[in-house]
């Protein structure tokens, strides 16, 4: 049976009634012992009998066509084959559900995957891939510079009132341009696939975030029926957007395995992760803020320039939070996407907010400076009553509380004027930024089984990319079924299981969690029936059912397993209400007066994301967001060569993600909140909320420390010391 719910109505807060005490508490991850002992198995760690090794080959020109010279390598030791069939130009975009661009023997950027070679051993395959001769026919006329691109897709999604007039009439204005460099997701596990064919059926052990879409993307890319594809990703070594869509190595492994009639494993080299998956676009953003004498916004303009390959539908939603975070009746956003011969742009953690809020929250800091109003007060003053563009009501929104309680806990009152606080060579200052991330509900299914022995099983093709899915689905099932979480097993990451929302867009926990909730709710109804009470009167705790005047252990109520499927679908609530998670980030930084080096000393995030399903894993998500914020604020940036467009810093030595010493103390506070409009578990997304605005708190703190306003991210020492 299937319990379906379309989210058209506010749902009762059943998880506040159940009383098992499993939900919200900071439970350890159930898969923890496997992870810390090296027994959790990631994609490249499956072995198949007679497995061959595949290695991808990249294009070494920017534009043109090519052929591979098989003769150049066919006598090399271990050589099994080289193929160019079905190559995808770049990873599929998130939720794309179809094949990405397949350019045949054409090259559209330097680094594009153009072939796969296979050999008996990894060492042989790696060398053959290097030795393979490619005959190129280069074409002139490619473009790699976003500032001079000839093909630019322009749009003006928002044009409300008269922003120019508002700017002219304002008591205070900010008109500033900010730039951000491209980012790479850089998950610790490179993209990896092991493909095995059984006749026309393909099984792929992969490292993917959204299996139901990935299955269709893979099938479509290979020109086969998706029903014949099974993908397994029980453990995913980080994704951050880069594993949303099927990636080149999956195609390479599948093509080689089919041709060889033997299993093939293909893992991207770290450099290839930088070159041929997706990056976050660079952005140029012009922020215009118009405010009255009291600092109330009368106009907000947020224009952005970005780039992507031709024929990619994805554009970074830079203004995602700008639409609804602050008021102001005159509003304008324009977007320009330059079409370039550079690696594809796609989703990297919090597409939109991650870079859009750097600029927006810096501009608010500049406005605070201009008006002389405390940055926290200025933000609170500009929280709109209704969505300033759509006029919709907001669902739960604790932004003001986050700002106030965060400020209190952080010691914001000790903040001083720029350059006022100095410790030896170091200027010290504080910064704040709001956090906001749109909340989304996606269709998701899960099967829940309750056994008479008081154990339960949750099954769904949902993934856990480190976000805590195993833990929170376990907790929701335990809470609903009245079981200790240790009695609940969660099976994930297999397209043979009911299709879930997948991990991305911060919708995974609430969407897949709702499906588990619904499946368990259906089981509750059946137990209530057997106990002879109304479902509302049923109480399940520690394996015992109570209802009406009856109290029976589960074993006595059940003659076999109860199996129910939960199915959540977004409904009218998604359109009726403006739904988002909110928060406030605080940072204290020290800036070296000699070198311009920045060290973040301590940070705090106060977050409101509806019901927190697991305080421990949720806090870890916020930790991650803050550290990502620090990385984007201070040192992350992909460099493209200005002649070829290729990624120059294509490894972890020169693309500087934060290390331990970059990550300071980070306190996380959660505001108690329920979002009744969001979904039946009243939770909102938190995975990307943590990065939204975080970097701006850091750069605002740099300004407060030393009086240098860095508008060109990242704020490396060379952008700071010349001004000190």
């Amino acid at each position, binding site marked *: 049976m299937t319990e379906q719910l379309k989210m058209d109505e506010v749902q009762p807060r059943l998880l506040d009634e159940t009383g098992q005490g499993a939900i919200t508490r900071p439970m350890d991850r159930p898969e923890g012992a496997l992870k810390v002992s090296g027994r959790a198995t990631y994609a490249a760690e499956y072995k198949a009998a007679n497995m061959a090794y595949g290695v991808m080959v*990249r294009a*070494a020109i920017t534009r043109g066509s090519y052929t591979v010279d098989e003769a150049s390598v066919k006598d090399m*030791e271990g050589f099994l084959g080289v193929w160019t069939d079905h190559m995808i130009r770049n990873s599929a975009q998130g939720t794309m559900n179809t094949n990405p661009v397949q350019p045949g023997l054409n090259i559209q950027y*330097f680094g594009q995957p153009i072939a796969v070679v296979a050999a008996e051993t990894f*060492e042989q395959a*790696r*060398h053959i891939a*290097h030795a393979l001769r490619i005959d190129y026919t280069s074409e002139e006329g490619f473009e790699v510079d976003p500032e001079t691109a000839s093909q630019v897709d322009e749009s003006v999604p928002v044009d409300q009132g008269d922003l120019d007039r508002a700017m002219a009439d304002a008591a205070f204005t900010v008109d500033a341009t900010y730039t951000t460099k491209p980012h790479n997701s850089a998950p610790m596990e490179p993209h990896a696939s092991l493909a095995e064919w059984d006749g026309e059926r393909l099984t792929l052990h992969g490292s993917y975030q959204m299996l139901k879409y990935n299955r269709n993307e893979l099938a479509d890319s290979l020109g086969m029926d998706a029903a014949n594809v099974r993908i397994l990703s029980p453990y995913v070594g980080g994704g951050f957007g880069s594993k949303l869509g099927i990636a080149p190595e999956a195609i390479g492994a599948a093509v080689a395995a089919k041709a060889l009639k033997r299993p093939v494993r293909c893992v991207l080299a770290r450099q290839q992760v930088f070159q041929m998956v997706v990056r976050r676009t660079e952005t140029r953003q012009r922020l215009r803020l118009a405010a009255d004498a009291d600092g109330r916004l009368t106009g907000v303009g947020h224009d952005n320039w970005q780039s992507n390959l031709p024929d990619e539908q994805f554009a970074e939603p830079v203004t995602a939070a700008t639409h609804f975070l602050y008021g102001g009746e005159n509003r304008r956003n324009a977007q320009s996407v330059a079409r370039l011969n550079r690696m594809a742009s796609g989703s990297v953690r919090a597409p939109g907010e991650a870079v859009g809020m750097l600029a927006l929250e810096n501009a608010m800091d500049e406005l605070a400076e201009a008006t002389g109003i405390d940055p926290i007060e200025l933000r609170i003053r500009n929280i709109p009553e209704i969505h300033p563009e759509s006029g919709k009501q907001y669902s739960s929104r604790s932004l003001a509380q986050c700002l106030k309680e965060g400020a209190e806990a952080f010691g914001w009152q000790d903040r001083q004027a720029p350059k006022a606080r100095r410790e030896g*060579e170091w200027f010290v200052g504080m910064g704040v930024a709001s956090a906001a991330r749109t909340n989304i509900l996606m269709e998701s299914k899960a099967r829940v089984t309750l056994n008479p022995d008081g154990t339960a099983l949750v099954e769904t093709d949902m993934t856990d990319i480190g976000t805590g899915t195993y833990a929170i689905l376990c907790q929701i099932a335990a809470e609903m079924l009245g079981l200790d979480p240790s009695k609940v097993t969660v099976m994930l990451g297999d397209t043979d299981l009911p299709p879930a929302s997948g991990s991305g867009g911060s919708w995974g926990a609430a969407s897949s969690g709702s499906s588990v909730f619904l499946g368990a709710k259906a089981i509750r109804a059946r137990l209530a029936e057997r106990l002879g009470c109304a479902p509302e009167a049923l109480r399940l705790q520690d394996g015992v059912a109570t209802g009406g005047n009856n109290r029976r252990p589960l074993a006595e109520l059940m003659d076999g397993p109860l199996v129910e499927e939960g199915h959540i679908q977004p409904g009218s609530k998604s359109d009726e209400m403006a739904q988002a998670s909110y928060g406030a980030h605080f940072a204290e930084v020290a800036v070296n007066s*000699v*070198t*311009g*080096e920045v*060290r973040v000393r301590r940070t705090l995030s106060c977050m409101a994301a509806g019901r927190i399903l697991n305080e421990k894993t949720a806090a870890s998500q916020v930790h991650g967001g803050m550290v990502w914020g620090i990385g984007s604020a*201070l*040192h992350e940036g992909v*460099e493209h*060569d*200005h*002649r070829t467009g*290729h990624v*120059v*810093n*294509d*490894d972890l*030595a*020169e693309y*500087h993600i*934060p*290390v*331990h*010493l*970059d990550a300071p103390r980070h306190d996380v506070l959660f505001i108690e909140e329920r979002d009744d409009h969001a979904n039946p578990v009243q939770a909102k997304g938190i995975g990307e909320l943590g990065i939204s605005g975080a970097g701006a708190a850091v750069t605002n703190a740099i300004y407060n420390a030393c009086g240098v306003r860095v508008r060109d991210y990242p704020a*490396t*020492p*060379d952008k700071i*010391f*010349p001004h000190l």
Partner: protein
Amino acid sequence: MRPFDYVRAETTSDALRADGRIIAGGTNLLDLMKLEVETPERLIDVTRLDLREIEAQENSLRIGALVPNSDLAADERVRRDYPVLSRALLAGASGQLRNKATTGGNLMQRTRCPYFYDTAQPCNKREPGTGCQAREGFNRILAILGTSDKCIATHPSDMAVAMRVLDARIEIESPSGETRLLTLDEFYLLPGDTPERETVLEPGELITAVHLPEPPKGRQAYRKVRDRASYAFALVSVGAAVNVEGGKITDAALAFGGLGPRPWRDAGVEEVLIGETPSAAVFDKAADVLLRDARGFGANDFKIPLTRRVLKAVLSELTGVAQ
């Protein structure tokens, strides 16, 4: 990685007799071999040789070529008498890499120039005559001193900067059994027209030790500026030993990382300082001399003013005189 013959040397004479590329810690060589930037046909594994001792000799220290970076940094004599060396080592790489990387191997590190690392890019160092893509490319981490039309690579070592401050000498054994001692100045070549030649080491020669002479007088410091707080190559680094007596600088040795194709030392800088009363003006004059021929290539222009600032800060720290 290209196939190669692997030979394990049990003695130094084994190593000298075998014709091939020496591997010890391998942390840079294997990195480059995986990318086929380096393609040796034979590897001579010297890790079993008896070159792991740090021996005190008369007023000096002889450091075996196979002493790991971490042991050298932790050695109590080095910490006490040559702190600039401990500091430089500890500012480099990671705990794991320092455990593996050796004293000799560290000196032989190759540049981190991203065009050198990518075999799809022309590079005069990797493939002489193909051109330098870095000059007009992304050159943020590359050199401002000692460059040539052919190459603007930087030497990435922190350790070698400190060795240069300390007037270390490299002990080299040749296949004929001769031993020679070279200063780092003599050891490293400037790129000129042959950037593929980085040192005077001849085929078959083996670095067997590094000799540190008597510790320099005065105070020592190593300061490194990098893009993140740890585990990153230097944008600019300054190693220094300075002695002040009677209000005057009597001794000064300064070397720089991140600026040139070899750990950089310029006697002119020290001449400006020695005999002077430390002051901001004197420090500036030292920077003027150091940077008189400095040239940026766009993305690395900032290194010129940054070097001045760091040099002055280090001199200020060591002399106790405000900048």
